């Protein structure tokens, strides 16, 4: 009898995507991958996962990993090296820049993907030992306005509530938050509350998102007028006698002036409706809902934050909750939904240029306190440069050394083309990454350091409800990858600061971080982990998810679900402040750029797709970058749905496929942020975005860049799909002269192609492709030069599909689904091979994936609806679609209404 195989233990860890911070159970499959499940014991998600989390197992392979350090050689090429050499080069580079140009010439650009421990060490090194506060992160692009708004109102960067409030609310307001797509697990909690207690949902958003389609009341307000809507609400609450006078009196200040300012701008619903462009009746209904519903949670996200008026918008929201005392109590409160998994953790350690550490700023006593705690020789004494300013300083040559960790600023920053040029001109550019081939890695780094990735990382993250959770490793580090904190400490040692960075474990870093939070705190700072400052390695290993502040009690460390119900704010007066937002100004006129470009996420992708882009399932919902446009705007520009459009701003240009969307407000466009130079030819939307920032938070206004657009001729459409082994061996360049976007497919990659090119020319390209793959003798071709068709395919020696190329006149190319399915097959039966170029081989339902969790394509759902499934529950029973994360439920409902109502 065989000995039983050891059953691999499931490791409890935390999802690395959005700020919901879902608990994940990962069980290694013994082949480098893992089986992923939601962790039912984790309070954030109670076992649920969204499509992205559920697909994590597809994204932890080694195919794109950076496996060893690399340094730039004299000829400019990156060459493999050992860690010692690479770290010497980093330390030497910093030393030279510090000596020649001083600490202001040194900068760190970090990431909300980093663990708190990595963040802590980076912040300590920069601000305490190199003497620069130029430590900013991609969180600046994400929630800096919420931080600033919180600090202005509360005196601290505190999210007062907890996810439980969503379960217990009777009214949930989502403003600037497409939660159905971007925080699906929370949206499911909201949906459950609506089911259980009839919670009403109000969605405030200039575009009709998937979230808006679920709303009881949808308020498609004019771009940038959110603050006026909430100021109008404040006036209404005052006029209707719905204020909590006791709370205002006891715990706040500045109410009178703020109300007066609000009254001046928005004296009533009619005035509010005028400014926001909403029907007065809808405004009045919104006011009444808020007035009459004690248990109200207002969630806000990037639509509020990423704005030149982001901080004002946050304060306008906070004003209404403070004025009604609806804060810090069950089922009520303002709620910033964070974009990133550890944006809050980064804030905790001071991972922003305008924060020092542990929620302390640059007040002299704070600087002194932290200096004493660290025994720091070179304390930064003033705020550093925030992201946009930092890259501008880089472009001017004022910053000469940069260390980027775990983010892709060449894609994501405003004026991304300028950011790319700025990085390429540095004296020292260090990039810590876990994948190769990012756009940022293409900006001539001097040193590439391989970082451990999710599944290998060991530390903590903090989610949107202040909950600290462990990210635990369940895989060995890939290649020579190391934790970022280790690399930082090694550089610190080489610069003579080894004694202050002698961390042996992430637990040791966490203890120091917790101790700093407790240091001379005495209740003066919200962020307090005193209960964990002596956590043992063993206790850290099994640390249960806990919400800060965490203080020591006789029963052990506690945790805090909510704050501020009884006041206790962290301003000098301990009172919350009302702040009057600046009145809504008319949108600046940009001659020649008549439209406003809004940017954001799509349902199944994350950031610049370096990880979600590895999942075939996640790539199927929206495989190529698109531009959403109102049909009237499209008609005016001579652009048709499915065609290509060039979008030009003062800063750059992109070319995107057009989708007509009547839910898009006329005059505004929407484009997803995810595609980079690595995944598409002309879709780096960041290159368009203007560098305007919120004056308080420094957060860039990513949602209202003036642009113009023009149609782009694209008579030829099609795709190239290639088997993974083949495309990895000989990296494919798509056919020249065409616009392309790449997506991961089961078994390989696909490039969607569009352009205006002669299909007759593709024979030579296909021939070269086949020759390169060693399978020229198996080439199959269809050519119809007059008809504009060219198709080709070739097969490996063992009979698997090596690649398929299809080019056709626009509108006549087959979908790639049928072809893509064949990539996964080890061998194509001869019978199917005959039909290969027809797209008839393979069979099965096709179309874009609607349900990414269970891989259900549009065709199958249409079939089920026609076959008698007349609600989402029936579809779920038949196909499982929509029964996991639920983020496709809006789409299912739309398909139901479209399919069941005869056209």
């Amino acid at each position, binding site marked *: 009898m065989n000995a039983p195989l050891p059953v691999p233990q499931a490791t409890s860890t935390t999802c690395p995507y959005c700020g919901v911070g879902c608990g994940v159970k990962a069980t290694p499959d013994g082949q480098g991958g893992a089986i992923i499940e939601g962790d039912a014991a984790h309070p954030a998600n109670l076992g649920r996962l969204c499509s992205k989390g559920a697909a994590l197992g597809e994204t932890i392979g080694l195919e794109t990993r950076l496996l060893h350090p690399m340094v730039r050689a004299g000829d400019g090429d990156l060459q493999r090296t050992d860690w010692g050499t690479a770290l010497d080069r980093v330390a030497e580079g910093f030393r030279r820049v510090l000596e020649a140009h001083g600490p202001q010439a040194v900068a760190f650009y970090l990431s909300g993907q980093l663990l708190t421990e990595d963040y802590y060490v980076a912040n300590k090194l920069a601000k305490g030992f190199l003497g620069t506060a130029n430590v900013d992160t991609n969180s600046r692009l994400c929630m800096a306005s919420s931080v600033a708004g919180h600090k202005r109102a509360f005196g601290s960067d505190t999210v007062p509530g907890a996810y439980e409030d969503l379960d217990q609310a009777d009214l949930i307001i989502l403003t600037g938050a497409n939660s159905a797509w971007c925080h699906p697990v929370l949206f499911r909690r909201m949906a459950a509350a609506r089911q259980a207690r009839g919670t009403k949902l109000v969605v405030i958003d200039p575009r009709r998102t998937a979230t808006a389609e679920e709303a009881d009341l949808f308020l498609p307000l004019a771009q940038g007028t959110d603050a006026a809507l909430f100021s109008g609400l404040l006036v209404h609450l005052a006029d209707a006698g719905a204020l909590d006078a006791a709370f205002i009196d006891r715990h706040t200040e500045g109410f009178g002036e703020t109300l007066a300012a609000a009254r001046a701008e928005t004296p009533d619903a009619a005035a509010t409706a005028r400014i926001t462009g909403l029907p007065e009746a809808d405004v009045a209904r919104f006011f009444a809902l808020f007035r009459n519903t004690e248990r109200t949670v207002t969630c806000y996200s990037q639509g509020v934050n990423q704005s030149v008026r982001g901080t004002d918008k946050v304060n306008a929201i906070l004003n209404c909750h403070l004025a009604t005392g609806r804060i810090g109590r069950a089922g009520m409160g303002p709620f910033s939904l964070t974009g990133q998994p550890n944006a809050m953790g980064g804030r905790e350690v001071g991972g922003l240029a305008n924060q020092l550490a542990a929620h302390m700023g640059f007040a002299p006593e704070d600087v002194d306190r932290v200096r004493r705690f660290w025994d720091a020789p070179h304390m930064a004494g003033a705020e550093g440069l925030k992201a946009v300013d930092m890259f501008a300083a880089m472009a001017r040559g004022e910053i000469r050394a940069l260390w980027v960790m775990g983010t892709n600023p060449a894609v994501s920053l405003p004026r991304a083309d300028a950011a790319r040029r700025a990085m390429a001109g540095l004296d020292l550019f260090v990039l810590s990454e876990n994948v190769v081939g990012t756009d940022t890695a293409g900006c001539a780094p001097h040193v590439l350091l391989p970082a451990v990735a999710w599944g290998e990382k060991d530390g903590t993250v903090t989610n949107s409800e202040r909950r600290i959770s462990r990210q635990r490793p369940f895989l060995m580090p890939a290649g020579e990858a190391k934790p970022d904190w280790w690399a930082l400490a090694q550089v610190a040692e080489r610069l003579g600061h080894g004694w202050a960075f002698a961390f042996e474990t992430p637990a040791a870093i966490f203890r120091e971080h917790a101790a700093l939070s407790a240091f001379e705190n005495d209740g003066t700072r919200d962020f307090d982990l005193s209960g964990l400052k002596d956590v043992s390695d063993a206790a850290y290993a099994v640390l249960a998810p806990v919400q800060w502040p965490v203080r020591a009690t006789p029963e052990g460390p506690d945790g805090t679900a909510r704050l501020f119900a009884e006041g206790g704010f962290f301003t000098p007066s301990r009172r919350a402040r009302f702040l009057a937002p600046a009145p809504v100004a008319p949108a600046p006129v940009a001659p020649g750029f008549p439209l406003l470009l809004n940017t954001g996420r799509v349902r199944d992708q994350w950031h610049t797709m370096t990880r979600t882009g590895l999942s075939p399932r996640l790539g199927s919902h929206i495989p190529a970058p698109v531009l959403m446009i109102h049909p009237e705007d499209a008609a005016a520009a001579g652009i048709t749905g499915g065609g290509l459009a060039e979008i030009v701003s003062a800063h750059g240009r992109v070319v995107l496929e057009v989708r007509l969307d009547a839910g898009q407000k006329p005059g505004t466009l929407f484009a997803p942020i995810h595609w980079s130079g690595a995944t598409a030819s002309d879709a780096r939307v960041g290159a368009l975005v203007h560098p305007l920032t919120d004056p308080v938070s420094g957060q860039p206004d990513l949602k209202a860049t003036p642009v113009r657009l023009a149609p782009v001729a694209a008579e030829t459409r099609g795709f190239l799909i290639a088997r993974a082994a083949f495309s990895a061996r000989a990296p494919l360049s798509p056919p020249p002269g065409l616009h392309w976007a790449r997506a991961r497919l089961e078994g390989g990659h696909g490039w969607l192609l569009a352009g205006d090119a002669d299909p007759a020319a593709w024979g030579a390209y296909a021939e070269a492709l086949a020759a390169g793959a060693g399978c*020229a*003798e*198996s*080439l*199959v*071709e*269809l*050519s*119809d*030069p*007059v*008809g504009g*068709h060219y198709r080709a395919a070739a*097969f490996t020696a063992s009979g698997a599909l090596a690649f398929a190329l299809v080019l*056709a006149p626009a509108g*006549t190319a087959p979908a790639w689904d049928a072809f893509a399915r064949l990539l996964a097959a080890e061998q194509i039966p*001869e019978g199917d*091979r*005959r*039909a290969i*170029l*027809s797209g*008839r081989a393979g069979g099965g339902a096709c179309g874009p994936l609607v349900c990414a969790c269970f891989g259900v394509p549009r065709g199958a759902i249409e079939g089920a609806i026609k076959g008698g499934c007349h609600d989402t529950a029936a579809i779920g029973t038949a196909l499982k679609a929509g029964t996991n994360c639920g983020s496709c439920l809006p789409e299912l409902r739309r398909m139901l209404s479209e399919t069941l109502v005869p056209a």
Partner: protein
Amino acid sequence: MSEPLVIIGNGMAAAKLCEELSARALGRHAVAVVGAEPTLAYNRVLLSEVLAGRMPAADTELKTAGWWRAQGVTLLYGTPAAAIDRAARAVVLADGQRLPFSRLVLATGSHPIRLPLPGADLPGVTTFRDLADVDALLKAARPGVKAVVIGGGLLGLEAATGLAGAGVDTTLVHVMDRLMERQLDATAARLLREAVEAQGVTVELNAHSEAVTGETCATGLQLKDGRLLEADLIVMACGVRPNADLARAAGLACNRGVIVDDRLSTDDPDIFALGECAEHRGLAYGLVAPAYEQARVLAAHLAGRPAAYEGSTVSTNLKVSGVPVFSAGDISGTGTEDIVLNDRGLKIYRRLFVRDGVLQGAVLFGDTADGLYYLDLITNRTPIAELRTELAFGRPALAA
């Protein structure tokens, strides 16, 4: 009382006509079939299979003796017709028998062409047309024997691959620069050449025959370029000409073949002709499909129903040594747009010829399953704009 209907010729056209007649006008005619060959009607297309030893001769039989009996057809095979006595309305057989007819159908097929080369009458030189030829070739074909087949058309290819299949060291000589030049374009012809060579046939193109060498029997074929190809057997398979001998002798209007109108009637309204011997609108077809179409029309006409034959779109649909080849319509490639599907691995090739939004011609190699689909599109002049994208992949799949 049934009218006497006499059919001269016992080939595929005659058999099809009898079959069509029996389906339409059973008992209207007393049918007699007169055949020169001493066998029941057989499928000439399969002769190469018999030659290659892949099929016994008996299996080529189109209909059983029992079938013929059941139709009430009088079969007079092995007895050639010698003359038509139009005045007496009777066919005179070689043995002197006279068969009166009220209606007469000529289905006399064609003669194989014998090149007028010096030495062409030597023993060892044969044609490839009927079972007698096959018998003769089979008797001579043994491993070690060398054969030269003259003619790179359908007949020559079948003879050559048949002989090679029988173990004969076979060379095919063809005067043109590619095989089956009237049916295939250069690519399909090259693929066919490769397939034929894979069967062990040596192919010589641009090869002009000058003379058969040998004193008492053939020993080789002399080419005009000076080469001498040794051969014990020389098969002339370079085409056929309509056999209009009886008609011409009877004074019926003839050109290359017996001239017929759209009812397949000669200039004598009671005498008809079909198949390879007939010439309709200036065309004498050398293929079986037009003969079958003519048989259907003629049967209808004889059954008293209006029917007209308006010509056939020429198509070739055959297997050359197991490789399916199809050709139809105008494949000259002049003034047409090409749609080409080429699968190197599976050796499947399709070239479609389009003009004015209509399919004009098609060449298929390796997979001819859609040949008749294309033939329909060509014949019916179906507009293909809607089909163009998928055209090369054949008949659209039925909607699920």
